[in-house]
């Protein structure tokens, strides 16, 4: 069906599109491994994306944009964690509220700053060179050495290492499994959770920045459900960061497939758009049916519990 060249382009596309999913998934891993349910990844992607575009538009620097995205998203993460940890509010409720605030808030800011309720002005992002040109292998190579891709891979590896091999990572894992027991060892579970959620949220914000820079503008609602799919990727991969990356690439590939097929789909266009979401459902159902009793891939036992 596809020529060799198209295949490579497709892979490049999938890798490129996987970055926001992957960053959001890492955000989910940090948060949930510490015991805080996080369905606000969607809102963090949006807020991060807008922050990045606004910052670059104002200062001309993509790096300032990235920094802003991280900061704004991390602040959201802190608010989310604090509401749960100190306010004892169900983390799902807090997540829903944050998503609403982000959705409405980003549109509000768009109107306020740029007088449009749907688009921001164009920004350059990171890539100066255009995507086309130089042959298929060059496209793939360019994608792989794109700062966003490299950064994401590095963050994924760092997350995996940190969780298993550092004192903080040990505390995060322990807090997510049995916060009461951890408290008895003198560790401040609340602080661990605040920090873990903030770190994850910051990474998620990066994903939002990548998303917006990729499109060279911010569009209202541009996260399109990626935050939830990323969470599904986390669940499906047993809350393990590296496996979650694989799941994200798979979902992104579906996304890319759906876009590629759309032009030829004609009447079935709308049905094809369902593809990533249906796939998510099917994936979750399949994994859940295989898991049965707890063990490999079970959620952190302390999710939602307080110390």
């Amino acid at each position, binding site marked *: 069906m596809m020529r060799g060249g198209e295949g490579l382009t497709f892979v490049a596309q999938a890798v490129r599109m996987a970055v926001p999913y992957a960053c959001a998934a890492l955000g989910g891993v940090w948060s949930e491994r510490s015991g805080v349910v996080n369905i606000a990844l969607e809102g963090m992607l949006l807020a991060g994306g807008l922050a990045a575009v606004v910052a670059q538009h104002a200062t001309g620097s993509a790096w300032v944009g990235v920094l802003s995205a991280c900061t704004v998203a991390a602040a959201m993460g802190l608010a989310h964690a604090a509401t749960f940890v100190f306010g004892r509010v169900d983390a799902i409720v807090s997540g829903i*509220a944050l998503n609403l605030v982000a959705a409405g808030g980003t549109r509000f800011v768009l109107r306020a700053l740029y007088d449009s309720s749907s688009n921001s002005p164009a920004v350059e992002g990171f890539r100066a060179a255009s995507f086309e040109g130089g042959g298929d292998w060059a496209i793939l190579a360019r994608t792989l050495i794109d700062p966003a891709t490299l950064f994401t891979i590095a963050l994924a590896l760092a997350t995996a290492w940190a969780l298993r091999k550092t004192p903080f990572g040990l505390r995060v894992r322990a807090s997510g499994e049995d916060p009461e027991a951890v408290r008895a060892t003198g560790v401040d579970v609340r602080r661990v959770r605040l920090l873990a959620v903030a770190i994850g949220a910051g990474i998620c914000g990066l994903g939002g920045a990548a998303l917006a820079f990729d499109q060279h503008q911010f569009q209202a609602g541009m996260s399109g459900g990626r935050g939830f799919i990323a969470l599904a990727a986390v669940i499906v991969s047993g809350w393990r960061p590296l496996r979650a990356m694989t799941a994200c690439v798979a979902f992104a590939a579906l996304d890319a497939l759906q876009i590629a097929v759309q032009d030829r789909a004609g009447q079935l266009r709308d049905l094809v758009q369902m593809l990533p979401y249906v796939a*998510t459902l099917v994936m979750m159902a399949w994994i859940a049916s295989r898991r049965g009793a707890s063990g490999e891939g079970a959620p952190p036992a302390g999710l939602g519990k307080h110390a």
Partner: protein
Amino acid sequence: MTLAATDAKGVRPGIPPGLLASLAGLAAAWIAFDLLVWSYGESPRALLSMLFAGTWGTPYGAAQVLYKATPLLFTGVAIDLALRAGLFNIGAEGQLAVAGLAVGAVGASLPTGIPGVVAIPLLIATGGLAGAAWAAPPALLRARLGVHEVISTIMMNRIGEAFVAFALASGLAMKGTVRTGDLPPGAHVPRLDSVASGLRGSAASFAVILAVACAFALPWGFARVRVLREIALVGMNRVACAAEHMPVARRLAQAMLFSGAIAGLSTTATVLGYKGHFESGLGAGAGFGGIAVAMLGRGSALGLVASALLFGTLEQGGLAINAHVPMEAMQVLEGVIIVAVALADARVRESLARAVPRSLGRKARGA
């Protein structure tokens, strides 16, 4: 994960529950409103009176508020029901969209002379069934496989969006449009302005009566209907119910289905009571708005009604002040209210829980 429940006798140890939390929500909303308005360089008080003028200031405005509040009341009740079972139904958006499509499609195919007594109950039932059907996959996934309903319902929302678009494009819609054909005249639920001429031109209809009835039927149902009572008990302590051989999975699935059905009933206001057909995007937003309504007003029929009226006012008011401050500000207010109410409510529950010493607690598991 459940919010504290009250049954018909209002059994909660002493503290006036929802009131404190609701007041906290309103206070937070006012502060947020001020901040958003100030950031636009406008005066909150001026905008507030403008908002009031555009809503409760005229009979037309009030009726518009009623129109917007009605679907919110339906979805609020729906989400409240699910919450009693400990479930989060975020899929009301998709459920009401698919229900709208079903009612529009079925209605358009009814014979023109059909009497209202037949058409209206038929179409109301269609809406309910379609909503329940759209809630069925998440319900089953949760009951049988334990898949968390937050993600599955959100996925169903997006799938629903695509499905409705596909169905409309594939022939259910009239050529070149995104709307279904007209309903026969008998299938319309009369507008309120047919009895009160001062409301002329407004979209509000007698569907509001059905919504209020649902709101009041809920607490009664939880006290007197066996399935609902068991659903509430399951929501409070699933393990104990399972230990007594109550069909926990089945009750959870039923709760989701009932919730979807009530969300689907909102089509009575939008399709039957207002437009007389279904079009793409009709009723959108009520699914998420219902979450805020349920959070603010849960457990009490009056609370849900008042809450729906509040958010209906915000929605209509947002339009009235849109020239000065973007109406998206209202969405931000929704989120703020949810958190404020939840924070105040959590404090109350905390102090209740602290009254119990951790005696039995966790098990020491042996090999």
